[in-house]
């Protein structure tokens, strides 16, 4: 049986073959060692493709509109980033751009680069490196936090003016669920084993 060390307390375990959706936890600190997911690669790829399509929709249509009296203000996904930059906050603007747009996009494309060839029993060059980057970027993609921010901002402004949700907002909201679903079906342990096999 292969050995695995708990990444939170370093205790070494023998990893039995897991069936179905079984979860192996550390016997000492209860951290998850491995969580088995059936059909992981196929399902992840399907959701990933849906994600890429939704992402391009979210980037190309109006995001939110605001109407008060006769004045209408329309924004795209990137307007906030641009406004912060113009207000003399370049660092903040770059941070928002990275965490809400560039990092999630890079993560999706990176995962596609790793998984699509694996589906056909091949590996792309440097796939192990790309997958490692994908994993370590995980905490820094914050689209779902951004979505919560949108909801709060809308409640804040809703009393002062009429909010007109755009197509882009709908795509963005759907994208959050698709990405969340993608993370629950992705089995990194299995991807690592496959990458090792195919090499």
């Amino acid at each position: 049986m292969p050995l695995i060390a708990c990444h939170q307390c370093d205790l070494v375990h023998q990893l039995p073959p897991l069936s179905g959706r079984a979860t192996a936890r550390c016997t000492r600190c209860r951290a998850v060692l491995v969580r088995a997911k059936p059909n992981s690669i196929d399902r992840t790829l399907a959701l990933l493709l849906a994600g890429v399509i939704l992402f391009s929709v979210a980037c190309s249509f109006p995001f939110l509109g605001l109407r008060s009296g006769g004045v209408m203000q329309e924004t795209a996904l990137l307007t906030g980033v641009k406004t912060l930059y113009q207000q003399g906050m370049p660092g903040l603007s770059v941070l928002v751009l990275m965490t809400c747009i560039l990092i999630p996009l890079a993560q999706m494309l990176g995962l596609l680069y790793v998984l699509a060839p694996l589906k056909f029993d091949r590996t792309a060059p440097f796939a192990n490196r790309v997958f490692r980057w994908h994993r370590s970027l995980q905490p820094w993609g914050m689209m779902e936090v951004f979505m919560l921010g949108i909801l709060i901002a809308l409640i804040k402004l809703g009393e002062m003016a009429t909010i007109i949700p755009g197509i882009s907002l709908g795509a963005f909201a759907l994208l959050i669920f698709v990405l969340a679903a993608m993370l629950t079906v992705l089995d990194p342990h299995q991807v690592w084993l496959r990458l090792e096999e195919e090499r």
Partner: protein
Amino acid sequence: MKTAALTAKQLGLVSCHDCHHLSQRPQLTDDQQAYCPRCGAALHQRTPNSIARTWALVFAALILYVPANLLPMTISTTLGDQQSDTILSGVIYFMHEGSLGIALVIFVASIFVPMMKILILSFLLLSVQFRSRWRPRDRTRLYRLTDVVGRWSMVDIYVVTIVVALVKLGAIGNIDAGPASGYFAALVVITMLAAESFDPRLIWDALEERDD
């Protein structure tokens, strides 16, 4: 599940931080670096300088906490009237408006969580430095919590981003991002880095030391 009841460190193995691959701990001189054979990440038995680096980041976060909370987060101008709002005055505004739920979300995400992260990480660091054997499982759980919850603190930054984009000269005045937003964003990023640089395996090392 069967347990070998030994740690990777005791067995002379190294677990890769990124892909969790177990490999033999190579014999290296000081200027050599081992890499994971599976994913290519630099191999370390424990995160290097974990305690010093985490302390440095915790102190930096503590310093940033002050301007982030005292300076204005947004500056709104309506018909020549200027009003500055800090994080706390935003919370109070929502309370007065009757949106208690939102007031609570902002209070927890922006004021409570960053302070809790600073306190919990300091506590964990001290417990590791004093080689405490007190409830290691609960301390690990506390660490997991700080690690997972941290990113949600960014929510206030995104609220500012959206509000700033939507409310520009015209309809209902103008809202600018205030100086606190930069400090606050830095605070969140630094507490996230601090949680990442703390190695929870250090909590368990104290147990093995005295068992030997």
